[in-house]
């Protein structure tokens, strides 16, 4: 295999293999996204960049819900790195299957999973379009040439590479849902701080997560006001000026609010930490699950090594 193989395919394969699938995906992703947004959020919170946090609290009885949060974090992180290091498409595909199995076991809401996948679609779609066309032709590669369009050489290795990356990104992103949705955020952050992450880091996450909702609500109100005054977004300098002022206003208000929030926290006796949300205990079951999981990650890496 020292030469570049050219495979000549008829021109009508181009719409069949490339254009139609691309168009269908490009149309389906925004449609699905808007549909799901409508379904998940009934009216009151129309912005799905701000998901409800504590889904699964209390009602979760799966194996993963009962898993000690420290074991869960360490395992997921190690496993994510193992997945990210894979090189062979088959291994990456196996990783996606494992993630899907975990999602089933954790009984995660299907909508949230689809939304996560859709959020990745932009970047991965870009890779899938760009890489086949730009990957340099190495010896042993196969190039597809569509009919008489000789300038359009599609490198099969690029497709495989982009698909592998997509599968890895998907496998890791899908695991975020069971990691976070199976325990309330304060418990997860408590687990992090027990693992040696500075306690302040966790508190900052909690605080900024909480005020994210406040500020986005405020931004929505300001947007409504601008619309009421007849503002319409266009590609011109006036729009940019209005948006610049809009951002400035968000900052002015938020800095002022920050002061008041901090005063209120101190007035309530804030001394640099919040109360612990509860005690954590590691049982043999937790360690067993961790062991199984790490074994799965190791098996994936080994499989990848054997294949590649």
């Amino acid at each position, binding site marked *: 295999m020292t030469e570049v193989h050219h495979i000549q395919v008829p021109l009508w394969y181009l719409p069949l293999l490339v254009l139609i699938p691309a168009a269908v995906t490009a149309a389906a992703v925004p449609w699905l996204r808007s549909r799901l947004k409508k379904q998940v959020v009934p009216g009151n919170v129309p912005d799905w960049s701000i998901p409800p946090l504590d889904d699964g609290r209390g009602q979760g009885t799966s194996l993963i819900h009962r898993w000690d949060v420290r074991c869960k974090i360490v395992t997921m992180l190690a496993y994510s790195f193992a997945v990210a290091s894979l090189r062979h498409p088959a291994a990456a595909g196996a990783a996606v299957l494992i993630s899907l199995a975990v999602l089933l076991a954790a009984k995660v809401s299907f909508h949230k999973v689809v939304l*996560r996948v859709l959020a990745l679609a932009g970047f991965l779609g870009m890779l899938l379009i760009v890489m086949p*066309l*730009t990957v340099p032709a190495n010896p042993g590669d196969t190039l597809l040439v569509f009919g008489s369009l000789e300038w359009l050489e599609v490198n099969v290795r690029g497709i495989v590479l982009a698909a592998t990356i997509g599968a890895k990104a998907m*496998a890791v992103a899908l695991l975020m849902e069971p990691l976070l949705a199976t325990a309330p955020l304060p418990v997860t952050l408590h687990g992090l701080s027990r693992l040696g992450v500075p306690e302040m880091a966790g508190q900052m996450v909690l605080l900024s997560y909480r005020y*994210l909702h406040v500020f986005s609500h405020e931004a929505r109100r300001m947007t409504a006001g601008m619309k009421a005054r007849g503002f319409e*977004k266009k590609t011109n300098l006036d729009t940019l000026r209005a948006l610049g002022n809009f951002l400035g206003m968000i900052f002015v208000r938020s800095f002022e609010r920050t002061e008041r929030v901090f005063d209120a926290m101190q007035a309530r006796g804030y001394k*640099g930490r919040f109360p612990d949300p509860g005690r954590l205990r590691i049982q043999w079951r937790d360690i067993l699950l961790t062991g199984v999981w790490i074994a799965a990650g190791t098996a994936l890496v080994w499989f990848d090594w054997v294949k590649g």
Partner: protein
Amino acid sequence: MHISDGVLPLAVTIGGYAISAGIAAWSARRIHSRDLPKIAVVTSAFFVASLVHIPFGPTSAHLLLPGLAGALLGPAAFVSIGLGLLLQCVLFQFGGITALGANAVMMGVPAVICGWFFQQVRGRARMPQAVAGGLAGALGTFLAAVFLAGLLAAGGEDFFGVAKLALAAHVPVIVIEGVVSGFTIGFLARVKPALLQSSFRDAAGLVHD
């Protein structure tokens, strides 16, 4: 603008974590530890601001704001941006937990550089400040795009095409970001100039013990 999981080589992701941990420690030391909760609250404002979409012809771009964050927060911008990325990758729909360190370096280092640049260049009057803010905003996005391209190119020859495209795609964003940042800084210089002081701590006017 994000690098998702599985794109970068393992060494780059781990290196990204190591570098960003170092810079975050430096950045956190420049702030009073009691001010960290405030940085957290301000981070959410930046997060919300970065969700604003700006129309650009038939499509739209959303702001990245590393330059503005640097101008307003100074050294604290790195902590703030790291926190914002963590929120984005974990709580929201993106994955990217393994690439988090690299993403933080990509966005945070330009922010700190821009903050320094803004403090050096800006004058007292409103117009020079607005111009300096606009330059800082454009510079921040430009540097972030260069970092992005560099990180992608670290994946080997196969990624050069993607890196070039990513760089080209950011050209309009750089312009938009510069203009909007200029207007924002001009607005702040007129409305609340205290926010543009050398660091977040001074701007907040906290009484220290």
